[in-house]
């Protein structure tokens, strides 16, 4: 590792440890690292926004005489009227367009992928002759009972309440499995940072000696 790498990896190691000091309590090192990452990310994203947003989606099309791109640019400029008390009502048009178009695109995709495809995949044959048929019963009962939990037009009482209770247990079993899986992933991220710090310290000692 050359001098350049020692310095920049040293900064990375210092910031890593500064963030980890948060586990003890709030302190100036954590505050410094926090403010640095917030400030740098704001600056970084401004540049990213310019080169990945403005240039390909406004400046380049206008250079190609696609003047209809001015319309979304005007909608974007209208948002800036938020800063004026007198004219801030103009920004509501842009907000309405953005939220409306977002919902309009998202809703059919959600219905298709999270409702219809899931429903089609859950319509499984049931029986007791083979193990897959038995597990299909569990899947269908689990999905049915989980749906009853999210049914808001009836109180969870009687048989319906029992079904909803089984539904939430099914959900919690799923959450437990998801939790265990994700915690394993997070521990591997921690292991990667510990390996980085170990390797940096060994390179630093080699460089200094």
């Amino acid at each position, binding site marked *: 590792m050359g001098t350049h790498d020692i310095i920049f990896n040293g900064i990375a190691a210092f910031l890593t440890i500064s963030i980890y000091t948060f586990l003890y309590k709030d302190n100036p090192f954590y505050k410094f690292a926090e403010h640095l990452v917030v400030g*740098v990310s704001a600056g970084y994203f401004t540049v990213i926004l310019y080169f990945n947003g403005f240039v390909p989606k406004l400046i380049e099309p206008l250079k190609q005489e696609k003047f209809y791109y001015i319309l979304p640019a005007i909608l974007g400029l209208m948002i800036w009227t938020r800063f004026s008390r007198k004219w801030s009502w103009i920004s509501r048009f842009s907000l309405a367009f953005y939220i409306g178009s977002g919902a309009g695109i998202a809703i059919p995709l959600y219905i298709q992928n999270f409702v219809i495809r899931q429903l089609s995949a859950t319509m499984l044959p049931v029986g007791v002759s083979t193990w897959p048929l038995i597990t299909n019963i569990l899947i269908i009962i689990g999905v049915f009972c989980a749906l009853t939990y999210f049914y808001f037009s*009836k109180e969870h009482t009687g048989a319906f309440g029992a079904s909803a209770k089984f539904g939430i247990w099914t959900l919690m079993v799923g959450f437990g499995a998801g939790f265990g899986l994700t915690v394993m992933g997070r521990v591997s991220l921690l292991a990667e940072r510990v390996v980085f710090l170990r390797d940096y310290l060994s390179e630093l000692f080699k460089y200094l000696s």
Partner: protein
Amino acid sequence: MMSSFFLYSSSWFDFNRINVFIILGAFFIFVIYFIREAKAGKSLFVRRIAGLDAIEEAVGRATEMGKPILYISGIEDMDNLQTVASMIILGNVAEMVARYEVPLLVPICRPFVVPVAEEAVKQGYSKAGRPDAYNKNNVRYISDEQFAYTAGVNGIMLRDRPAANFMFGSFFAESLIMAETGFSTGAIQVAGTANIHQLPFFVVACDYTIIGEELFATSAYLSKEPKLLGSLKGSDLAKFLIMVSLIIGALLETFGITKFTSWFSVQ
């Protein structure tokens, strides 16, 4: 010499997805019907969501302790439906908070969400009759970057020590970091998200978790808006039909009849 050429043009309607169109159309009809019923003043029953009691308890506790309330609306933009639902809940929380004169801190991840959050909080304060108590500086943009935002929110939790943390919206890997930090400060925490991969962390680290669709039901229940109530009832009817279809489809598949199930397949 014969030459041929092909003209390509995209079609206006994809007949391979007619089933999606029919189901979506039916869903819209249900929603519009119930919205009209709600607007006509008909009482539409919605069971009380248990998480609502937790929200009121959290606001009460913050008032007793004289400490601020922190409201986190997720890290997605306004095109995400969870963020929209979060803004509605924020307006209602702001109305509750305004009555008790407790500061409401709202750190935001996306610039586009800032004006919507400001509007929601301002309207909440106005509805409570306390427009003068609204402090624009309490709704602040932190950063677009996921973990820079998380670091900023953690800093607010450690320094301002809010008595109650509300986390409603779309969250990803930062959910556990924020929930654990809030837990370490002793705050009462109520969270809600439809991101199923983050629900386990909220269930573990928060005092109460609003799961999945309960987030949207909470926004409808709190606001009592005819449009939201109508949407909830419409989706309930759709859910009922889904449950019936599931049973019918499973029985038909068991007897080897696959035509019903194949109608639901999407290409």
